[in-house]
């Protein structure tokens, strides 16, 4: 493959990995305490949340890319996408300008998939918190919900750090899902355009997704409530760490592409 294309892929994967790392900061990761309704957020760790949103985002992005590539219903609107993908010219300068619409479609599909996963995890769990456990959905980190303006501190049970996923955290999880899905689907398309098979591109993307989500969750020491949490201010550290770590992984990926995946 020509060097410019490889460099664009390298930059694309690095940028995408950084987006995943940033996205984790928006997701209300509650961890084990949240599963027992003793902390605000989705009641599981970052690893499982990354897997859930990553896999669903990949499925939706993958279906869209595959549909355009194999002459499905979308192929008639984006006829240049399939040949560019199989020819390895999708990430050249002309390939990107020719296929902006197709790119947008794949990336948005990935975003929507990941956002769906996030909002399902947050809202369905909220139904259980409210009606099965019987706790109000409150955050302990802020006095008033920044979006609805509802009073929070009165409803937090003593000795806990909030319950469920309140409105601000759900909105935050949507932003996180969007960033994560954007990053994940960009890695997938970049690897696919570099000549990886579908399975190899999917698992390469999952690998990069796990790497960045775990690094980002080390930055927030495991739990965060969303963009209103004081821990959110640590995001620049994660951006630096994730971009360097993904850059190294991207070098491996580009080296495989150079030698013909």
């Amino acid at each position, binding site marked *: 493959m020509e060097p410019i294309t490889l460099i664009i892929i390298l930059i694309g994967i690095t940028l995408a990995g950084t987006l995943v790392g940033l996205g984790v900061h928006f997701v209300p990761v509650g*961890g*084990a305490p949240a599963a027992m309704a003793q902390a605000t957020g989705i009641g599981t*760790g*970052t*690893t499982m949340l*990354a*897997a859930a949103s990553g896999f669903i985002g990949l499925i939706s992005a993958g279906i869209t890319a595959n549909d355009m590539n194999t002459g499905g219903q979308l192929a008639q609107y984006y006829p240049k996408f399939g040949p560019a993908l199989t020819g390895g010219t999708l990430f050249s300068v002309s390939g990107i300008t020719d296929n902006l619409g197709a790119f947008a479609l794949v990336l948005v599909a990935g975003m929507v998939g990941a956002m769906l996963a996030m909002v399902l995890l947050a809202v369905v769990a909220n139904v259980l918190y409210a009606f099965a456990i019987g706790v109000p959905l409150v955050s302990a980190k802020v006095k008033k919900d920044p979006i609805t303006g509802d009073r929070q501190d009165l409803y937090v049970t003593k000795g806990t750090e909030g319950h469920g996923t309140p409105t601000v955290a759900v909105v935050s999880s949507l932003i996180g899902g969007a960033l994560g899905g954007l990053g994940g689907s960009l890695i997938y398309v970049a690897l696919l355009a570099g000549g990886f*098979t579908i*399975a*190899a591109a999917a*698992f*390469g993307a*999952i*690998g*990069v*997704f*796990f*790497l960045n989500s*775990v*690094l980002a*969750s*080390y*930055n927030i*020491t*495991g*739990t965060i409530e969303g963009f209103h949490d004081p821990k959110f201010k640590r995001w620049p*550290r*994660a951006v*630096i*760490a994730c971009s*360097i*770590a993904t850059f*190294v*992984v991207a070098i*491996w*990926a580009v*080296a*495989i592409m150079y*030698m*013909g*995946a």
Partner: protein
Amino acid sequence: MSEVKDIDWFTLAAVGIVGGLICIYAAVVLNAVFKVNYFAFVAAAGAILATVWGADAVRRICKYGIGTGVPSIGMLAFGMGLLSTLLGLKVADYLIGQGTLTTTLVTGVPIALVLGPIIALILSLVQGAVVGYLAQNILKMKIPTMQMGMIFIAGAASIIYIGYFTLITGTFAYPTVISSILGTGFIAPVFMIGALPMLHPYNACLGPDEEQKRTLTLAVESSLMTTVIFGILSLAIFAVAPKSDIITPAITVVLGLIAWVIAYLAYWARVKESGTIILETGVLPKKEA
């Protein structure tokens, strides 16, 4: 509770790297010499040695509390190890394609192919060093074992990958790995179930009375269970034409099951050893005397 001296982690690293690579090479070379696939199970021994190495590194990092739960570190190791491992195997394939280092050790095993796992291991160690540095100095985790531990788990993940690739397909040649492991989707179980024996032991045994021998016995036990599962998966590769070889998966599964029973009993003995006797005192009397 640490009267028993722990095995040094550099010793375990040596066992994992040298033992792991020797077992993987032994599987491929023995298969080539005898022109059979039966020795694929030897590669599992390499993966198990690497798992023990990785599980020990995981317990030394997670002892300090990483805040995200132990499983995250296994996923991190396998996430960063995947592409570096594939690149290492690809370099070997590229060299063979270029016609360099094609002198054969034994029939069908050129020197370039043998270099693959070593390059994969080195690249994974480099990746682990970068991530360890980032976690320690940029994310400021302040865990003294983080730098070395990250290098170790990335290296262990690489050897575990290659070990199980060889167990399932009988070789670690890049084209076979791409078609038989990635193309069939077996990469998903290799990623998840392969990581479990490394992250699960410390996750299950952690606590004030955690001891190295019990944790590592559990690592061996759970990786043998993984071996049995991958033995069943290898049916899909070996038992169909043109190989039509049902004996290789059978050997892997039967030996794996026998070894698993032994390892399970050994782990059970360790659990009983570190258990304490509980004295039944009965419930409190309803009325004070």
